[in-house]
């Protein structure tokens, strides 16, 4: 007997499953009702003489109203239920463990904040909300972990994210769910959920060259970003300390929130959104740095918020 039901290993899974059971109940009720009526009528009112005709019934307004309104009400219930589950899926808690994901044909690359890098394997602790910040180097991919009931497309040129909180240690499938070319079905991996202590052990046991932010900082210096983006206000570029999450005033009066996407855009298309009071003099870095390096820079800029004494 094959499994009829997938493993349930995240806080979201029971919510999706509950909706699933309700939907099955609705579907079974109506399927059985319709199929039952059809079979019953077909037998009960089968044609007995070749000239037989049906009874002349044109319709009934009450019935029409009933089977318009009742399905509409049921649909409304399902909509609200589905929407509330989706809202929960779309809004990560404030405190999350962030992990960066880069998809490329045909592999998954994961970068932990402390600098651990993994390919097609993702280690996460149980009981902690994890947010994946994802982008692609080439075509559209999609991270799908059936046991967690989460899924989101991974797009080139943009960050998307999903979050989950694993509830059960174990190894779970990770599939690419958006068709991405020849070896699409080989673009699979595993999410390994560990007890917190084991996870800590795994973290410290992995070979690390330095945290993501520190790699980003080094890159920041190598690319000479530091010459303009200085910690004091004397630089030719905006100050980055304390920038992340703030609202930036742009030329032309518009504003933008400095999130990951904004930082990414500002590195690749510096002219797209110019901070008020600065000149569009920054060169583009498009084609010069990889998606992974971009993530390191983003993480470095984010880390500038928490450092006590910014820049050396």
């Amino acid at each position, binding site marked *: 007997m094959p499994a009829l039901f997938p493993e349930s290993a995240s806080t979201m899974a029971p919510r999706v499953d509950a909706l699933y059971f309700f939907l099955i109940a609705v579907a079974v009720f109506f399927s059985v009702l319709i199929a039952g009526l059809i079979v019953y009528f077909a037998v009960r009112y089968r044609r007995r003489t070749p000239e037989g005709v049906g009874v002349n019934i044109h319709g009934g307004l009450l019935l029409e109203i009933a089977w*318009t309104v009742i399905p509409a009400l049921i649909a409304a219930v399902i909509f609200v239920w589905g929407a509330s*589950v989706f809202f929960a899926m779309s809004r990560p808690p404030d405190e999350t463990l962030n992990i960066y994901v880069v998809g490329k044909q045909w592999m998954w690359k994961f970068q932990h904040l402390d600098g651990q890098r993994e390919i097609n394997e993702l280690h996460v602790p149980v009981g902690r909300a994890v947010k994946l910040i994802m982008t692609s180097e080439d075509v559209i991919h999609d991270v799908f972990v059936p046991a967690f009931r989460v899924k989101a497309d991974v797009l080139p040129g943009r960050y998307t994210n999903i979050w989950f909180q694993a509830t059960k240690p174990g190894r779970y499938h990770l599939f690419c769910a958006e068709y991405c070319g020849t070896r*699409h*079905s080989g673009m699979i991996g595993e999410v390994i959920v560990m007890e917190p202590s084991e996870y800590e052990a795994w973290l410290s046991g992995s070979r690390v060259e330095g945290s993501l932010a520190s790699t980003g900082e080094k890159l920041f210096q190598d690319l000479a970003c530091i010459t303009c983006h200085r910690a004091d206000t004397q630089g030719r570029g905006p100050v980055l300390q304390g920038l992340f999450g703030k609202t930036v005033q742009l030329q032309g009066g518009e504003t933008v929130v400095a999130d990951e996407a904004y930082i990414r855009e500002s590195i690749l298309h510096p002219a797209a959104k110019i901070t008020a009071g600065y000149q569009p003099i920054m060169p583009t870095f498009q084609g010069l740095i990889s998606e992974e390096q971009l993530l390191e820079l983003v993480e470095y800029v984010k880390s500038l918020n928490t450092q006590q004494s910014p820049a050396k």
Partner: protein
Amino acid sequence: MRTLVLPPHHYLNDGYGIKSWLLTRDHKRIALLYLAAITFFFFLGGSFAVLIRLELVTPPGDLVSDETYNKLFTMHGVIMVFFFLIPSIPSTLGNFLVPLMIGAKDLAFPKLNLASWYIYVLGGLFTIYALVSGGVDTGWTFYTPYSTVSSTTSVIPAAMGIFITGFSSILTGLNFIVTIHRMRAPGMTWFRMPLFLWSIYATSLIMVLGTPVLAITMLLVAAERVLHFGFFDPALGGDPVLFQHLFWFYSHPAVYIMVLPSMGVVSEIVAAFCRKQIFGYKFVAFASMAIAVLGFLVWGHHLYVAGESVYAAMIFSALSFMVAIPSAVKVFNWTATMYKGSISWKTPMLYAMGFIGLFTIGGLTGLFIAAVGFDVHVTDTYFIIAHFHYIMVGGALMGYLGGLHYWWPKISGRLYPEPLAKLSAGIIFLGFNLTFFPQFILGYLGMPRRYHAYPPEFQVLNVLSSAGASILGVGYLIPMAYLMWSLRYGQIAGANPWGASGLEWTTTSPPPTENFVRTPIVTEEPYTYPIRAEAHLG
């Protein structure tokens, strides 16, 4: 029983030879040209499905290479969607029946009608060229940037095939709209029209309003791929999600192009084989129009996880649920029509009952995936595959086969062999459910679609599905064989073998080229039983 004979003059013996067919302007002959062409594409697309199911019998990708597998499901999708399902009922039964049902001599633009067939064939040739020149591996959805940047296969010929065949669809829809507006016989008011015409009219609206957006989208894909004009490629500043918006603006309503005509067929069959007025005629008619309009408001439910905004997903979700309502109204009305009918268990009725049951399952699982929070888990899995095959095969194709059997006596003048037809209808029903029901479970388990190899725990359900597919395949070959056989050896049908109402049954079988000896005059509602012969002779 009285021995029946074929009428001396009918459209089939009005001229012989290849030229009398290839240059015909008779809508009935053009319908048969389409019938031949789409049957060819159906079996071509079907053969790819056979290979797909064979590959999936075992978890590793051991029958064909991953490259070949990707081309197989792409060509299966492209051919079945654009060259079989979309033209299926409108171009064959629609072409044949629209003038007959409204009491006209032909469609409004017969030359344009023939031109649509040639355009369809030209589009088909491009597709076949794409196939023999190595195939396409983008999936039938042509998602960018894979289709414009990454794929190295024959994307352009395939996209052009779809672009060209789109014009065939547009011109057919245009022809039907004008015909239904302007060519109705005296007394044939809108509310005296058979429900098949309402659904064909609604379908034509979608063809005319949706297809041009697909056409321009395909052109933009071609421009990006060939000329490197940036529209959707992020490396050129574009947004791949915009492609998905434009693509689904057509391709979601396209699902209703496939299923609405089938709904029309089912209305005709249920009325004829219950010998009864359709319960709530106006509601069924308006439901067709509502589906056509609402169908255009829901395309974003294909993009819940694709990167559209959370709020857009909510709005599209709410709108998607609204389509469920007219669909439910139709199902309930058909069921209610059977109440106190005089129900004959002939093959078309079996298909119609099968349609109602399978469409109900397809529609209800549509509710599942319209709910955003649920869809996140199952989108791009086999749940979706199962759902749309219930609609497109369980719904659209069942309706098509039912309609083909119902009107076969009118088309050919002869009856198909009833026992064999009932047997194959049963085989198709069983095979269909065995093929696609396990896929719902597979989908919830998490098996993604378009996977050439899969983890071993999914094997049992995949084997069941493949077993069902082999039964289904046999089920489709049997009607093909006996319908051909009946062209020569079938019993002569007579004008109205089913004792059905409707103008098409008042003329001879097969009808004369000009359809009616005298222009009919309509004096009563459709589906009036018992048939008052004098009312129909006009």
